[in-house]
C-alpha cells in the first residue's frame, strides 16, 4: 500500500512538473523533453496498475506507449528541425505568422 501511494504521488508530481516545464520552456527541444516526462508519468501509472491489479496488460500497454512516445519524438523533432533550422532564435514563441 505505501508503495502504491508513493508511486502514485510520484507520477502525479511528475505529470504536473512536466506540464509546468512545457509551459515555461521556450526551446522546442526542451518542450518536447518535458512532454516525455509527462508520458513517463502516465506509463508509471500503467506499470503500477499492473502490479496493484495483478494484470500484465498494464505492462504490455506500457511497452506500446513507449512505442508511441518514440514515434512522437521522431515526428516532433523533425517538425522542430523544419521550423527552427533556419531561424536565429530557437524560441517556440517566435514563429507567429498564423494568428488573429
Amino acid at each position, binding site marked *: 500500500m505505501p508503495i502504491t501511494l508513493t508511486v502514485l504521488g510520484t507520477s502525479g508530481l511528475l505529470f504536473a512538473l512536466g506540464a509546468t516545464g512545457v509551459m515555461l520552456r521556450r526551446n522546442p527541444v526542451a518542450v518536447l523533453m518535458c512532454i516525455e516526462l509527462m508520458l513517463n508519468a502516465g506509463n508509471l501509472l500503467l506499470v503500477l496498475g499492473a502490479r496493484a491489479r495483478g494484470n500484465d496488460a498494464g505492462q504490455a500497454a506500457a511497452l506500446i506507449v513507449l512505442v508511441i512516445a518514440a514515434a512522437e519524438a521522431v515526428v516532433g523533432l523533425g517538425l522542430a528541425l523544419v521550423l527552427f533550422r533556419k531561424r536565429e532564435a530557437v524560441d*517556440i514563441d517566435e*514563429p507567429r505568422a498564423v494568428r488573429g
Partner: protein
Amino acid sequence: MSQWLAWSFLFTVPGLVLGSTGAVKRPGLASIPGPIAILALAVAWLVGAGQPTAIELGGWLPFVPDGRFLLRVDALSAFMLGVLGLVSACVYVYSLGYLEGDPGIRRFFAFLDVFVGAMALLVTAGNLAVLLIGWTGVGMTSFFLISFWRDRPGTLYAGLQAIAANAVGDGALILAAVVVPAGCGDLASLQRCTGGLGGAPLLAALIVVAASAKSAQGPLYFWLPSAMAGPTPISALIHAATMVAAGVYLLARTYPVLALTPAAVGATAVLGVVTALFGAVMSLRQTNLKRGLAYSTVSQLGYMFAAIGFGAPFAAIFHLGSQAFFKALLFLAAGVVIHALAGEEELAAMGGLGRALPAAMLAFVAGSASLFGLPLTAGAFSKDAILDAGFGIAPLLAWSLIAGALLSGMYIGRLFFATFYAPPPDEPRHLHPVSPTLIWPLLPLAIGSLTFGFAQFPLGGLGHVLEPALGPGEMLSLSSPAGIVAAWLGLLGFIVGTRWRVRRDEGARPLPERYGWVDWASSVSVAVAEGFARVQNGRTGRYVLATVLGFAAILLASRFG
C-alpha cells in the same frame, strides 16, 4: 387540381433551369409562365371551391418531432398563392423592362424563381419542418436580391442587416420545430402540441418572435428600410407584398396556438399598433421615395399584427391581400419614376413629374387612395374590418389605429406631392423613356387596389371561402362609425400631406441609413469579436498554458461542478 396546387412550389423550376442555363435566349422570358400558372390554379381553386388536400411523404426527416414532408392546400394557402401569383406575374413582366440590359438579369430572374418557389412552399407547408424550408428560403433569396447590385455601396451591408434580423426569426422557428413533443408539428393541429417543456406560452412566444422578424415589427423593423437597396421590383414583390407578409400568414395560420395564451395575443396587438404608428411617423421623415414607402409597409404590417391581436385573423389576411395590391402598385409606380430618372430615388430630385409620367401618377393615386382608405377602395374595407374587430376588444388601441389612418394619409400625400407636383429642381433633367412593359403590369394591380374590397360579394364572400381556415370573418360595412371616421381622416391626411414640403437642403444620404440600436449593436459585436480573435495571438507558449489550464479546469469542473 388541389394536388397540382400543392406542388406549385415547383412551377418556377422549369423557368429557373431554362433561364439560368441560357436555353431561352431572352433573359426572364422562360420564367413568366410559372407565376401565371400559380395564379390561374389558385384562382380556379378559390372560385371553383376546390377541395382541401394534403400530400404526405413520411420518414423524410426522422430527427425532428414531425419529419414528414407534408404539403397542405386549403383556402388560406390558395388565397396566399393567388396573391403571390398575381403580384409576381406583374413583377416578372415589369422586371423584363426594368432590368433590360442589366448584365445580371439572368441571375435576377433565377433568384426570383427561387423566391416564388420558396414562398409557394411556405404557404403550402403542412408542418413546421416544411414551413422552415420555405421560411428560410425566402429570407435567403431576399438577401441575395437586396445585395443584387454588387457594385453599389452599402448593398451588402443592407443585405446582412436583413440576414441578421431574419436570423432571429429563423432561430425562433427552429426552436419551435424542435421543442414540440414527438410527432407534433402539423400546422393544422399545433394547438394540441403544447405538452413539451414551456408548453403553449413558449410556442406562442416563438411564433410571435419569428413573425415579427419576418414582418419587420417592433425593434426588428430596421432591416426593411435598408432592404430598399435592392431593385425596385424586388421591393414591390418581396419587401411589400409577399415575404414580409409571411409573418402575418404564420400568425393567422397558427392562431389557435396563440389563442391559448392571451398574453401573446395581447402583446401582438400592442406590438402591431405601436409599429403601425412608428412606421407612419418614420415615413413622414424620409427624403427617399422608396424608404418612405418601406416605412409605410412597416406601418401597414403593424395593422395586420394588430388585427391578429384583436382576434381577427381574417381581417389580417384581408388586409394582407389589400396591402399586396396597393403597396406593390405604389412600388411599381415609384419604380417607373425611378427608372425615368435613371435610378434617382431622392425626393429632392423629383417633383413635377405628373405631366411626364401620367400612368405612374394615376397608378400612384390609385394605390394611395387604397392605402389611406378612400371609401370603397380595398384598403378602406380591410382597414374597417380591423378597426371593427379592435373596437370590440381594445378601443384604445383601435383609436390609435384611427389616428394612424390620418398619418397614413399624410405620409402618402406627402410622397405623392413631392414626386409628382412639387416644383421640380432647378437644373434641367433628361427623362428616360418608359417602356410599356413597365406600365401594363400596373393595370391589374390598380384594379385590384380599387376593387379587391368587393371580393366579399361573389360566392358568399371571401370570408366564407376562408372560413374553414381562419374561422368566421365579418367583412365589412362602411357603415360603422369607426370606418367612416378613419376614411375621412385618411382623406384629410392626404390633403394635409400634399402641403408638406420636403426640405431641399437635406442632401442625399447614402443607403443604408445608420440606425440607432442596430448600428450600435453591430459595432459592439464586431469589437467584441475582434477582442476574441486577438486572444489567438500565435504564441505557442500561451497556447500550451491555456491548454493545460483547460485540462485542469475540466478536471475541477467535473469534480466539483
